[in-house]
């Protein structure tokens, strides 16, 4: 299964394959993290991901929504249509308690994973 996230900065196809497999589930982490403090709508999520990753993470927008719907079905996020004066109707997603708890666990796992990678492959990150 593919998370729908592609890494546009990768130069080699095989490396991208490896990373896609290895970082399976990263989309969930990214979305949950961005919703941790603020409810956001889909476009805002996509824009923030693009901006914060300096374009390194780029989502096919349909896949983004597929992931959102999956998270919603699992009760990790909750969507709600909001209509504000002078604005078009948008669907805002917020983190549920279950989502917040999963986010904590995923952060810890990813941390361990990246530390391991850093120790073994000599990758360091800020």
């Amino acid at each position, binding site marked *: 299964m593919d998370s729908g996230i592609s890494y546009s900065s990768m130069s080699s196809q095989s490396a991208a394959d490896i990373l896609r497999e290895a970082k399976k589930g990263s989309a969930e982490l990214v979305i949950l993290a961005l919703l941790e403090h603020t409810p956001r709508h*889909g476009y805002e999520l996509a824009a923030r991901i693009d901006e914060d990753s300096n374009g390194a993470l780029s989502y*096919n927008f*349909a896949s983004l929504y597929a992931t959102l719907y*999956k998270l*919603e*079905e*699992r009760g990790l996020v909750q*969507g709600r249509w909001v209509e504000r004066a002078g604005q078009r109707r*948008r*669907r805002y997603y917020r983190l549920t308690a279950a989502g917040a708890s999963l986010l904590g666990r995923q952060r810890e796992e990813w941390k361990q994973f990246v530390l391991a990678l850093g120790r073994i492959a000599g990758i360091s990150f800020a």
Partner: protein
Amino acid sequence: MNDWQLRVRRHLDTRGLTLAPAVVDELAAHLEDAWEARRAGETDDADAFAAAALARADIPALAPRHAAPPPAPEPVAGPMWRGLAGEVRHTLRQLRRAPVFTAAVVAVLALGIGATTAAFAVVHAALLAPLPYADADRLVLVWEHNLPRNRPRNVINPGNYFAWSERSTSFERTGLFTPTVANLASDGQPPEEVRGLAVEPQVLGMVGATPLAGRLFTEADGAASAPRTLLISEGLWRRRFGGAPDAIGRAVVLNGEPATIVGVLPTTIDVAGFRGEFWRTATLPAEARQSFRGRSLMALARLKPGVGPAAAQQELSAIFQRLVAEHPDFNTGWTLNVVPVHEQLRSETRPALWTLFGAVVAVLLIACANVAALLLVRAAGRRHELAVKVSLGARPVHLARQFFVETAVLVGAGGLGGAALAAGLVRVVAATASDAGVPIATADVLDGTALLFAAAVTAVTVLVCGLGPALAARSTSAASALREGGRGQTGGGQRWRGWLVAGEVAAAMLILSGAALLGRSYVALQEVAPGFNPRQVLTARVSRMGPHAQAASVAFTSEVLARLRALPGVTAAAGTSFLPLDGNLGIASSFLLADRPVPPAGERPSADYRPVTPGYFAALQIPVHAGRDFRDADGADRPRVAIVNETFVRQFSPDVSPLGRRLTDSLGSEQEIVGVVGDVTLSSLGAEARPAIYLPYAQQTIGAMTFVIRTAGDPAALGPALSAAVRAVDPQQPVSDIRPLETVVARSLTRPRVASAALGLFAAAALLLAAIGVYGVVAYGVAQRRAEFGVRLALGAQPGDVMRLVLRQSMTVVAAGVVTGAVLSVPLASALRALLYGVAPGDPSTLLAVGALIAGAGWLASYLPARRGTRVDPVETLRAG
């Protein structure tokens, strides 16, 4: 819907995908945000940027394969009608994209609904709509019923009428009437024979007649001593009096007697189905109240409120038992028969009209089945789309709704077209029905009721056509449909289509067998020998009405015949009081054979009485089997003679020669039988021959006379010369109904001809539609199985094997339909029994022939697509697979 929602929908449509409206909204909002952000960056590629994002959108990622959960409960929550308008717009867009499919479906439905509505409108007007009388259900006709001769609607005797109408308590009013013809002369215009009614004054009020001008009859008009008064129809008023207001009060001559026009009635006024151009009062002499001789009148009666026809019947039966006791010679073997007017008017046409209506409904059902099959094929092609919807949380009931919306749009268009078509059809049908003797006012046939019916048919059609696809949609499983990759082949759908086609074939079998039975009856009727030779014979009627002395009438007839025989090209000329097959049943009476003991009252034999001139049998080429024809010498002052027909001899003189035997008629005169002639069909072709007694016109003179002249050339060409010959003898004598005898014979077959032609038309439509149904289902099946056929052919199967495989499957369906239709047709055809002649319902050879015809059509309809199946290129299919 904003621009981006439209663009997303279009994007989905072009890829055969559908997403729940909420998802579309969200994707559209996203793209719009992206577009606005891009534009704010002051670049001019915002459009292209957003469009590229949409083009790259990984829509299948939203499909269940990726276990994408339903976005939210929006599409399922809320009432069923939420989003309906959008659904309709969506459907319209999709249908516009499939113009051939849409046009075919709408045309088939318009035809089916239009024909059904037109047929219903006619049936409604002719059988169901209330009659144009006030309290029509309280109007009845009272007939005398001859029990031994099984004649339940015999005209009545005045003495009996006055007796029962005075003793009965069931009726509010009763009145006598009788159809009549009269010669009308006025203002120096040539005299004219007109048909009308003689009525007691109260009768016109009983049927609710209101005069357009002048007044109705009063009781005083009915007195025997009163001056003669006359009401005329609007048609006669305009034709003969130019619609002049002063026609009221004008003096005319009716049957040689002066009469005054007192009013004008609408032409449409009828008395229990009897129409006329004039109404005169029926004046019965005082002694008629005590007359127990002869039956010639009709009685209309209005039941008291709360009294049903059955109660009236019971009372009249009891009263008539006393009348039998009082007049045993005249009334034994008789009783009274109360017939509601609507029954009288409608019982005869009911079987034919309901048969036609049934046929039309069956055609509509076949059309529905075809449309349902088409929709099923379309549904199968859209399984992928459905699967995506299911995965996005659409409940089966919403998918079913989508199909119903699509069906409703299609059928609604068909219904509108059908109503328009019905408006035209109904005129044609009503005109045909009126030719066949079923008078229908075309003006108001397509009324609110008929349009309501069209709407109801449309609604039912939506249900019938939409049910199959909707059920198929309900069973859509997302995973299986997606796995199939949109190939859409499902055993269930194919089975549905098989059932539909078998049903179509069965319905076609029903209609076709009915049409074949009626067609065979019509052919058989045409082949019935009428007992005379109608070719090259011209006929014309003169009615000698009024105070003509018998001797003068005989002299008039002889003089006219002498002139006719002298006309060039005339080979024979004669006259008869009642022309065969003219619709006039003439006189029937009981008689006694002088050399036999007198049978008890009620068991006396009876025969048709026919006054004819000498030379009548020769002119019509009716064979004289024994004895002689009448002679001019058989005059009023000579011994009375009679000629009888073969049926008479078979029934009453089988062992002894009838020649020389003596008859006594019901009026007491005695005749000697001097000849035996062949049977002639008098009432209708195919009717059982009845005993007939011919009398010389000079010895039994009645007013009616139809001249028959056999010609060497075209009989119609002699019409003017015939009129001139009559006028030369009596300038005041009108001549009417100048027409060849062949026309008279052909007209007597109008009803069976119209019925078989109409049913034949529907049968052809049914056969065509059923064949299209078979073709469609086989063609679809072949298209679905191309890969399988390719494999079979690659593995060494011969094209013939593939052909046999396809044909075997389709012909199994056709055979199932034919057998079902044949089984069902037997009880249904029994309903046709009244319309059949010379062929039984469920006639095996007819069923076999029709079955073979349908099987042939089914085979042809299967063969064409099956041949395509044999032309599959195995290599290509294997590569594609």
